[in-house]
């Protein structure tokens, strides 16, 4: 604040804050100041006039007095006057008629700077007025009024002083300047009074008005501020009279004014109303009563400050501040200031609205997220209400589109109070085809805001009418009433209001505005959200379209969630139903063996009354459920391997303790890290099936046993028949020889008959055995490549004597270029011999021919296609063998039965021609087995022709069970199969690897049971059998093998390293370690030996150990470990070195690396065992594990060498295996031929 102003304010007693904080306060201050000055001025004026009157009288007395100066009363009176003049607070000059100074008082001296003596006799005007500029302009016309009477604030100067002096006219001037002695201009107001009643003396009284002038300037600034401020200001004095106001005030209150001045009538009204305490037109206000209360408060307490927002009916909002204006502590009046805050309030309100809206959305969305499905409907209803209420709509609703999007159903609606009457008028369902315009907008995801439905183009309006179910005519096409309303409201507020209400009532039923927001979920329009307003431009939609869109999205999501959850619940219900009603038991279990869930079917299967009961009682599946305690572990292990198990069969205990069989299908459910969360699967009660199966198994076993019995019977029969036949044939032959020697021809022929009968009986036995084997499917093919020419030759050679016996000739047609065929030679030969012998038998003095040819006819039809289907024919090349005779031939009837067993063409034939009647049956079976056929053509008396067709290369049919054969080369019949039975995987692995390198095919079995199964399946050429095995041991396996006629023939090698089970033991070592050596295991192992050596150790201080290891680093490590364990270590870097050390001193224990230079570990063991056979030194073998391929190769090399050079047991094993297998392979083919030729 300007210091000058500050000072003035202080003088006025208005000490306020500096600077003032607000415009209002400034305004107020100005008002106060203005008032103060006005007041001061008027007071001053009165004072001056009083003073002047006083002075004039006094001076008159004074000027009169010199006429009688000696008169003492007069003199004293003069003095008194003189004193009063001197003490006067204004400058006073007494002039003569010419305007020369007679006297001045001290105050005048003080103000002008002239001494009385210096001025005396001088024309006053010369001293004080001559240089004044523009003074003339201030000399105005004489005032209309006497200044003394003027109460008005505007005071006009009267005559110019010089003129006044000259004309002896009184004059006054409220704003003039006198020249001071020091040349400064002194602002003054003066009053000049010429001499009264003809007196020569005139008086000039003047005041220093420097301060006042300053005040006036300030005041004019303040007035300008007052005028230019945007606040409406009204200042009244304490009596309620209007002191000041500005144009704005008038405008704000709608008061008429002309040229910034209130019209007289308005002013009067205003004055009156103010005086009566009602200075304002309260009818304009929305809440006049409240304002009235404030006014009353002001009247009651003049010091009160009031702030209020005045809301006008036309929407205008004024901020009212009413403050008392004070001079000092005294209240002198009141300033009412009004500020138009309509816009601010609008903005504020809008802002507030948006905030509220945002908060609402936030609250709703949070609400929806956390809300359960059941609460969603309620939540949506609340949302509709909340948003509509907040936004000023009367109705809100949601339509959801049907699946085919042809119609929309109203699913939610909220109606405000004003609309409840028409609630039912809205259709519940909308046909989308009826609202193409609307639908298109919604499809484009546009929000549709229609502030005035009436202003829409007709088609759209019709759609909306349909949409909201309202008659078209009900919309206002234009709004004359609205204009009227506004005018009326403005002019006659009370009337306008009542009219407005009337209109409102009339419109109440009609929706006039609406906003429709598409509900879009996953880019699909699922429905729409609508808000209807009864009033035009209802609601605040435009301000919040974005937010409404958000609401739309939120609701769409919520609805989608609801839909999804409903679908989920439905499918849950469905699955729950499946789960509950399934025949199969369904479970979820933890890896630790607890149920997470199970269905009632499972409870039923397990014999529980309910699922709950089962879950409560069956708490540890591992131990409670399975009959075999290891079963669950196996289940888990299988799941661990392959994540799922199927048909996992187990015997389990039911609740009552009975056992049933179940089959489980399960899979493990893992989290994203792959760790198992739980298992889930199904359980089937397969007890019935199991029983059936076991019945079947029993039946099968019975059948097998019957079959075995049959085989045994046949074998026994064969044996028992052969034994006496041996004697018969033998003795008859012997006697024949003797008879020949003795020359008794008669007995020779008789003996021949006995011998022949015996041999016939023998062939009969052989044929019967053959046919039974074929029937039992146990006849095997031994396929090989052989020269056809040789085959024919050998067959002809055998048959020739027979042929020639009946006087027949034999013709052979065998081209040279036939080369080889791949078939079972023995069987082909047997077939040909059979045919030739038949031909010979039934032909007398005729011709018998045998011919062979190669046929490449692809269309060759196989008669017995079905039976031969198991044979794979690699090409279409066939060999045709033909045996023709000129014998007795056969009838058609005979031909039909010729291949049936035990049938000859005629029952009499047997008597006449002999034979078993099995030959052709067997031949046919053999041909079929080889993928070929045999055919006969004959007519009675015209001879017979048999044709045999065989593929030139027969492939071995695949034996279905022999799935393990993949490693053996297909066309290498020389590869033998060895079944290695050992429960120790390391031993198994080593034997397997070693034998594989020998060119043998290896199958392994880890248990006796498995061994028997594989033996049956694979029929291996040899079995190596570990004696010590858990469960079924080697001896049991052996006896089972020998008891089975099918398996009895398989040679078995027992690995009887009794008490020692690992490879190390097999090699004659006491123990073994794998590399890299585990320190703990080594220590534990060595401690064992140390305990064993305790007796020795107590005599000697330390135990001696010999490390045989070529690798320096390993040796060092071992030494360190051992020495800390208290062993005395000696080292050897090779087998030789080790033997040298052993010669010097005998250690308590040898630690041996198998892979050594020069002499390897195996050899070394052999040497040590040889030289220390009486009292063996324990040897711990260190073998490599996890070898690199190169190391593996190397180790295999070593193992090879070991086998060749021979550590006893290992070498023996391998030798035995190899030789047995080889022998077996060699003899198999050989024996087949021989066996069959036996017949």
């Amino acid at each position: 604040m300007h210091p000058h102003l500050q000072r003035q304010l202080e003088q006025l007693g208005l000490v306020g804050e500096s600077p003032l904080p607000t415009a209002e306060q400034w305004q107020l201050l100005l008002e106060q100041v203005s008032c103060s000055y006005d007041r001061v001025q008027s007071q001053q004026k009165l004072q001056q006039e009083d003073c002047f009157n006083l002075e004039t009288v006094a001076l008159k007395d004074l000027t009169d007095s010199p006429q009688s100066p000696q008169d003492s009363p007069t003199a004293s009176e003069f003095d008194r006057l003189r004193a009063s003049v001197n003490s006067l607070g204004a400058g006073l000059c007494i002039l003569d008629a010419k305007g020369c100074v007679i006297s001045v008082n001290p105050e005048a001296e003080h103000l002008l700077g002239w001494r009385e003596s210096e001025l005396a006799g001088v024309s006053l005007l010369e001293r004080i007025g001559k240089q004044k500029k523009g003074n003339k302009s201030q000399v105005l016309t004489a005032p209309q009024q006497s200044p003394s009477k003027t109460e008005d604030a505007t005071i006009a100067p009267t005559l110019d002083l010089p003129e006044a002096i000259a004309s002896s006219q009184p004059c006054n001037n409220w704003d003039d300047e006198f020249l001071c002695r020091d040349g400064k201009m002194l602002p003054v107001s003066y009053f000049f009074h010429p001499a009264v009643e003809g007196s020569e003396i005139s008086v000039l009284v003047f005041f220093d008005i420097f301060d006042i002038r300053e005040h006036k300037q300030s005041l004019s600034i303040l007035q300008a501020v007052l005028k230019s401020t945007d606040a409406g200001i009204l200042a009244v004095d304490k009596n309620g009279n209007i002191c000041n106001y500005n144009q704005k005030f008038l405008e704000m209150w709608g008061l008429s004014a002309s040229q910034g001045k209130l019209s007289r009538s308005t002013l009067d009204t205003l004055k009156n109303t103010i005086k009566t305490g009602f200075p304002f037109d309260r009818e304009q206000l929305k809440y006049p009563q409240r304002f009235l209360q404030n006014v009353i408060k002001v009247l009651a307490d003049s010091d009160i400050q009031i702030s209020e927002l005045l809301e006008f009916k036309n929407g205008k909002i004024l901020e009212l501040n009413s403050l008392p204006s004070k001079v000092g502590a005294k209240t002198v009046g009141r300033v009412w200031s009004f500020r138009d805050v309509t816009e601010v309030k609008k903005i504020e309100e809008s802002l507030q609205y948006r905030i509220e809206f945002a908060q609402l959305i936030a609250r709703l969305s949070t609400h929806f997220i956390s809300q359960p499905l059941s609460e969603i409907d309620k939540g949506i209803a609340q949302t509709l209400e909340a948003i509509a209420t907040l936004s000023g709509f009367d109705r809100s609703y949601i339509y959801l589109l049907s699946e085919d999007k042809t119609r929309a159903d109203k699913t939610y609606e909220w109606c405000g109070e004003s609309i409840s009457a028409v609630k039912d008028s809205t259709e519940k369902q909308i046909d989308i085809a009826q609202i193409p315009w609307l639908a298109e907008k919604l499809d484009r995801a546009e929000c549709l805001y229609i502030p005035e439905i009436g202003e829409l183009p007709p088609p759209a309006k019709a759609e909306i009418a349909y949409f909201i179910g309202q008659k078209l005519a009900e919309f206002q096409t234009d709004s004359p009433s609205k204009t009227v309303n506004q005018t009326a409201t403005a002019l006659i507020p009370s009337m306008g209001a009542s009219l407005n209400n009337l209109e409102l009532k009339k419109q109440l039923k009609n929706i006039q505005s609406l906003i429709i927001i598409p509900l879009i979920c996953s880019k699909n329009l699922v429905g729409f959200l609508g808000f209807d307003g009864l009033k035009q431009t209802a609601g605040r939609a435009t301000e919040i379209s974005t937010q409404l869109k958000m609401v739309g999205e939120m609701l769409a999501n919520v609805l989608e969630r609801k839909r999804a959850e409903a679908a989920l619940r439905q499918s849950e219900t469905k699955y729950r139903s499946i789960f509950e009603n399934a025949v199969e038991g369904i479970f979820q279990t933890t890896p630790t063996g607890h149920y997470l869930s199970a269905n009632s079917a499972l409870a039923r299967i397990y014999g529980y009354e309910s699922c709950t009961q089962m879950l409560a009682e069956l708490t540890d599946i591992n131990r409670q459920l399975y009959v075999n305690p290891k079963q669950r572990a196996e289940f888990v292990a299988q799941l661990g391997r392959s994540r799922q198990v199927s048909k996992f069969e187990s015997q389990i205990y039911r609740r009552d303790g009975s056992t049933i069989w179940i089959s489980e299908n399960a899979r493990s459910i893992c989290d994203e890290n792959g760790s198992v969360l739980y298992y889930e699967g199904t359980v089937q009660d397969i007890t019935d099936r199991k029983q059936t199966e076991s019945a079947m198994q029993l039946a099968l076993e019975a059948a097998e046993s019957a079959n075995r019995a049959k085989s045994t019977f046949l074998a026994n029969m064969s044996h028992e028949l052969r034994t006496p036949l041996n004697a018969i044939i033998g003795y008859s032959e012997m006697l024949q020889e003797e008879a020949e020697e003795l020359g008794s021809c008669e007995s020779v022929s008789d003996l021949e008959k006995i011998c022949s009968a015996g041999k016939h009986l023998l062939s009969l036995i052989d044929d019967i055995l053959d046919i039974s084997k074929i029937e039992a499917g146990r006849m095997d093919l031994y396929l090989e490549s052989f020269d056809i020419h040789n085959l024919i030759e050998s067959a002809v050679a055998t048959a020739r004597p027979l042929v020639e016996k009946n006087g027949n000739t034999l013709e052979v047609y065998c081209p040279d270029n036939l080369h080889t065929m791949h078939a079972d030679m023995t069987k082909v030969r047997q077939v040909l011999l059979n045919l030739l012998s038949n031909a010979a038998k039934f032909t007398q003095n005729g011709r018998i021919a045998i011919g062979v040819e190669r046929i490449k006819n692809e269309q060759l039809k196989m008669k017995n296609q079905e039976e031969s289907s198991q044979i794979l024919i690699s090409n279409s090349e066939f060999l045709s063998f033909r045996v023709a005779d000129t014998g007795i031939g056969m009838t058609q009837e005979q031909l039909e039965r010729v291949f049936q067993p035990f049938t000859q063409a005629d029952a009499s034939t047997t008597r006449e021609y002999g034979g078993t009647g099995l030959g052709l049956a067997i031949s046919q079976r053999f041909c079929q087995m080889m993928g070929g056929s045999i055919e006969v053509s004959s007519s009675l008396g015209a001879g017979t022709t048999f044709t045999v067709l065989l593929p030139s290369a027969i492939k071995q049919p695949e034996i279905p069970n022999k799935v393990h054969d993949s490693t053996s080369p297909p066309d290498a019949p020389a590869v033998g199969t060895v079944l290695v039975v050992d429960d120790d995987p390391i031993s198994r692995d080593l034997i397997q690897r070693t034998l594989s390198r020998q060119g043998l095919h290896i199958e392994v079995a880890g248990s006796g049971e498995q061994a028997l199964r594989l033996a049956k399946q694979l029929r291996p050429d040899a079995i190596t059998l570990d004696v010590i095995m858990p469960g079924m041991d080697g001896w049991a396996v052996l006896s089972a093998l020998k008891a089975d006629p099918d398996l009895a023939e398989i040679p078995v090698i027992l690995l009887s390293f009794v008490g020692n089970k690992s490879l190390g033991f097999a090699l004659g070592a006491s123990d073994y370690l794998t590399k890299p050596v585990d320190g703990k295991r080594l220590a534990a192992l060595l401690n064992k030996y140390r305990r064993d050596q305790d007796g020795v150790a107590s005599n000697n201080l330390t135990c001696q150990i010999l490390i045989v290891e070529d690798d320096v680093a390993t040796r060092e490590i071992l030494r360190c470990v051992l020495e800390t364990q208290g062993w005395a270590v000696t080292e050897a870097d090779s087998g030789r070195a080790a033997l040298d050390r052993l010669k010097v001193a005998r250690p308590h224990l040898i630690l041996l690396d198998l892979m050594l230079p020069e002499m390897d570990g195996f050899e070394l063991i052999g040497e040590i065992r040889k030289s220390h056979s009486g009292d063996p030194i324990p040897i711990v073998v260190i073998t490599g594990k996890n070898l690199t391929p190169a190391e593996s190769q190397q180790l295999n090399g070593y193992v090879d060498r070991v086998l060749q050079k021979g550590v006893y047991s290992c070498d023996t094993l391998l030798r035995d295996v190899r030789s047995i297998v080889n022998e077996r392979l060699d003899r198999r083919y050989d024996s087949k031929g021989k066996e069959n030729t036996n017949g």
Partner: protein
Amino acid sequence: MAKILLVEDNEMNRDMLSRRLARKGHEVFIAVDGAEGVSMAMAKVPDLILMDMSLPVLDGWQATQQIKAAPETKSIPVIALTAHAMAGDREKCLAAGCDDYDTKPVEFPRLLSKIETLLKEAMK
């Protein structure tokens, strides 16, 4: 000619075969069971053994194994002579250590040729 041990429990066959072998000029020793066969083999050290398989006391397979296990007798050729003529019987006999195999009823010339072959081999 040769010393042949015939191990055979069937009296008729024993008689027949021994006589027929004798007629061919062989010196024939007789054993009626496996155990006797083993001991006769030890005692007589024949040039060849004809071994029936189904024998009392000790069967032919075991007897053969013992004979083949004993250093004194292991070089003597053994021919299994058996009415067990089913498939696999031959292998069983060979596995037991027999050098050859022939079936009953004996086809004498074939047996003689086998005997001859083995004797020739043993001579080498």
